[in-house]
């Protein structure tokens, strides 16, 4: 365990494009590595992906470990796990971070089992205790009303998956240089039990995470019928519609609209939080939005703590006025509102 050194970031690429969360983790990992005085490494797997190594260095890595193989063309637990374990057993990192995406969580869970080490899921805060070289991985716990810091004292590497859009990527710096280390993976396609037959991207469905404006409703709206006002305001603004965990559980809106720890993390330009009290599990999913407008009856609701502007009042009274006044404002200026 004493031999383990260095901070690693699993760099997820899909069809040759690096996921945003991996760049964010290079930013977060850079800070941890500097505190510990060790190099930051990016871990890159795929088929013909070596050309991405420079990007990983531009975003903060000192070195990049690359495993290329035809069996890594698409993500599969079986092959990716073996590639990651190969590197981890040979080069022994002390900290290893993954994006909390479907594939990132999948590979991390398998790797942690084989390496018999600890894995903290969906963290939203990272730090290190330098003297003991301990990763402090914090996450909302128990339905999201409180934060817990998870430690892994006796096993290495200390691993965590990290929520997208909560860490900050560094500025891309093309003057940065680093080392690229290649390793070969000895797996043949015939040994694989799993095949990806088809990948279907839903291009028609606009992802909530891409929306520039989001109107999100909570249980303060009372019932499903009132939730229609959220859709109406969103229509006027050309915005995406979100719901809290409670609202999704109640069936007022489908799970792909859920914002928070177990739903999407969003960072729109404008976020309307309507009838939402602001449990931690919701706040982690939206608090990095540029402008947050909170509407709630209770002036002490935690949502006002993260809001840019707050209106204390009954959402059912405020929403119709918002809809009316926005409509009026746009009509006056003669056109649709668009995002610049």
């Amino acid at each position, binding site marked *: 365990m004493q031999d383990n050194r260095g901070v690693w970031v699993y760099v997820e690429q899909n069809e040759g494009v690096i996921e945003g969360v991996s760049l964010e983790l290079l930013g977060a990992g850079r800070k941890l590595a500097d505190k510990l005085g060790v190099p930051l490494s990016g871990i890159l797997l795929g088929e013909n992906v070596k050309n991405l190594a420079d990007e990983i260095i531009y975003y903060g890595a000192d070195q990049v470990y690359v495993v290329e193989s035809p069996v890594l063309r698409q993500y599969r637990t079986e092959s990716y796990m073996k590639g990651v374990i190969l590197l981890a057993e040979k080069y022994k990192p002390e900290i290893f971070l993954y994006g909390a995406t479907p594939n990132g969580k999948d590979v991390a869970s*398998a790797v942690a*089992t084989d390496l018999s080490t600890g894995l903290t899921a969906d963290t939203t805060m990272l730090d290190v205790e330098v003297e003991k070289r301990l990763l402090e991985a914090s996450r909302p716990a*128990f*339905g999201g009303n409180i*934060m817990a810091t998870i*430690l892994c004292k006796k096993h290495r590497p200390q691993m965590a998956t990290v929520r997208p859009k909560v860490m900050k990527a560094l500025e891309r710096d093309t003057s940065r240089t680093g080392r690229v280390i290649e390793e070969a993976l000895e797996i043949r396609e015939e040994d694989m039990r*799993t095949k990806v037959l088809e990948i279907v991207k839903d291009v028609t469905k606009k992802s909530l995470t891409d929306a520039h404006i989001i109107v999100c409703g909570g249980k303060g709206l009372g019932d499903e019928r009132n939730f229609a006002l959220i859709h109406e305001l969103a229509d006027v603004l050309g915005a995406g519609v979100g719901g809290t965990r409670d609202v999704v559980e109640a069936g007022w809106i489908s799970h792909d609209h859920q914002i928070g720890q*177990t739903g999407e993390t969003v960072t729109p330009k404008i976020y309307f939080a309507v009838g939402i009290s602001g449990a931690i599990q919701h706040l982690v999913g939206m608090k990095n939005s540029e402008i947050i407008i909170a509407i709630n009856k209770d002036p002490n609701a935690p949502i006002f703590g993260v809001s840019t502007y707050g*209106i204390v009042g009954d959402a059912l009274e405020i929403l119709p006025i918002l809809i009316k006044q*926005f409509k009026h404002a746009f009509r006056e200026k003669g056109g649709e509102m668009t995002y610049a």
Partner: protein
Amino acid sequence: MHIVVCVKQVPDTKIIKINPKTNTLDRRSAPAILNPYDAHAVQAAAGIKEAAGGEISVLSMGPPQAVEIIKKSVEIGADRGYLITDRAFAGADTLATSYALSKALDRISKEHPIDLIICGKHAIDGDTGQVGPGIARRLDIPPITNVIEVTDINKETRKVKVKRKIINGYELIETEMPCLLTVEKEINEIAYSPMPNMIKAARYNPVIWAVSDLEDVDKTQLGLKGSPTIVGKMFTPPKPEGGHMFEGAAEDQVKQVIDVLLQNKELFSVN
């Protein structure tokens, strides 16, 4: 076809309260329920059984009271239930949990060979989603996480086709049995339980095993001792200061918000 569904008893996190003094869960404040994702997993197994025949077992690790969620699973459609309960399991993190469950699965498969294991995507008290893939690794069978549809199960070729949710879409994956699936809620709607199931569930007593009933168990890998992760501290994040609060009648407040937003040319352009 023998399908085993792994289920967990969880506090209903929607209503659970935190003791503000000790920062710990007040477990008495929330009823214990079958983890909602696991209910979908049992339902998915029932759907497969209907199409392909076979039988469904459920397996849980937890305190003796967890028999309740096994009964609930029988209501949804399970034929048999196993509960492993022992003080030695207490305090297990995801690594120790997948170890204990894999030992129970070893024993179950000796008596009834297992073709398919299904787990919920995650449990709502821990939200980790790590136990399912962990079990698959320990049994060395392929894991497929985030399944939204079981498209085909062929008993002759032993092939399974599923749709797996990914960022902005899904992938169609083929694998071979035995394998492990973790399922999303989208996979099905929980149906009303048929009356015969309810009657069976009311009288059902699951098989209960302690550590001593399992074979080849390394006790150092169980419970708190076998858990690499520990909770260092619990805290409520410092209360942020918050922003500007508008005042006045509702109409005035809304007008002020809209004025502020429309003034900010970087946020909007009105054309």
